[in-house]
């Protein structure tokens, strides 16, 4: 049976994203297995940052995010809903890691979705009338 372990509203603000991540980590205390908490925190951070920076850009306090996380078997099942603009093309961006070249050409961004792609499973994006709904799982590493 899935158990709802984390259920929170997040303001459209990087400081509240941080607050939610710290709360999530506290929730996972005593439930961690094989570094699951750290990986989940990374994925949730990248998903929430992306929402604040893109989907809800310029929306101020009208922007709303809701995060729910269920503990399911050996893993975590997340659902993140926001009332921002849809993802470009109606799907999650490419999740390839940026190439690393010479010092002056090193990328300073573009790692977020790639980290999500590596760490999360079963990523599903759905656009409802006015909402983005992203679901993903974090599985305990073998």
């Amino acid at each position, binding site marked *: 049976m899935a158990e709802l372990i984390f259920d929170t509203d997040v303001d459209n603000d*990087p400081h509240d994203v941080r607050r939610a991540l710290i709360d999530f980590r506290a929730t996972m205390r005593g439930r961690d297995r094989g*570094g699951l908490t750290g990986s989940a925190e*990374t994925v949730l951070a990248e998903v929430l940052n992306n929402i604040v920076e893109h989907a809800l850009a310029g929306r101020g306090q009208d922007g709303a995010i809701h995060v729910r996380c269920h503990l399911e078997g050996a893993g975590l099942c997340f659902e993140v809903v926001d009332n921002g603009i849809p993802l470009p093309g109606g799907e999650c961006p490419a999740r390839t890691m940026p190439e690393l070249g010479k010092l*002056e050409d090193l990328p*300073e961004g*573009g790692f*977020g979705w790639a980290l999500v792609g590596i760490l999360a499973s079963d990523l599903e994006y759905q656009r409802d009338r006015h909402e983005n709904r992203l679901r993903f799982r974090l599985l305990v590493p073998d």
Partner: protein
Amino acid sequence: MELSKRELDGVLIVTVNESRIDSAVAIRFKDMMRQLTENGPERVVLDLAHVDFIDSSGLGAIVGAMKLLGADRRLDLSGLRDNVAKVFTLTRMDRVFRIHMSLSDALGG
């Protein structure tokens, strides 16, 4: 964002006295790194021993700080905790930076 710096044996050591380098502080972090490393030794060691979370914005800010040093200077990292080390490994940035187990390793090596 609290960073402190000191010089030891011709190396500039910048210590991050915060537990997180995330999107709430990434721009400020890069600005502070620019100020703290503007002049000084060729070699800079960024001590991350107090940091237990970094996101892609924080990673980008560290890369940006290294690029600001230019080709003649070098930014090494020390004291990466598990969660932080994982982000460097997954993004392959562990091949770009010289990463030391601890500050004393960084200074002895």
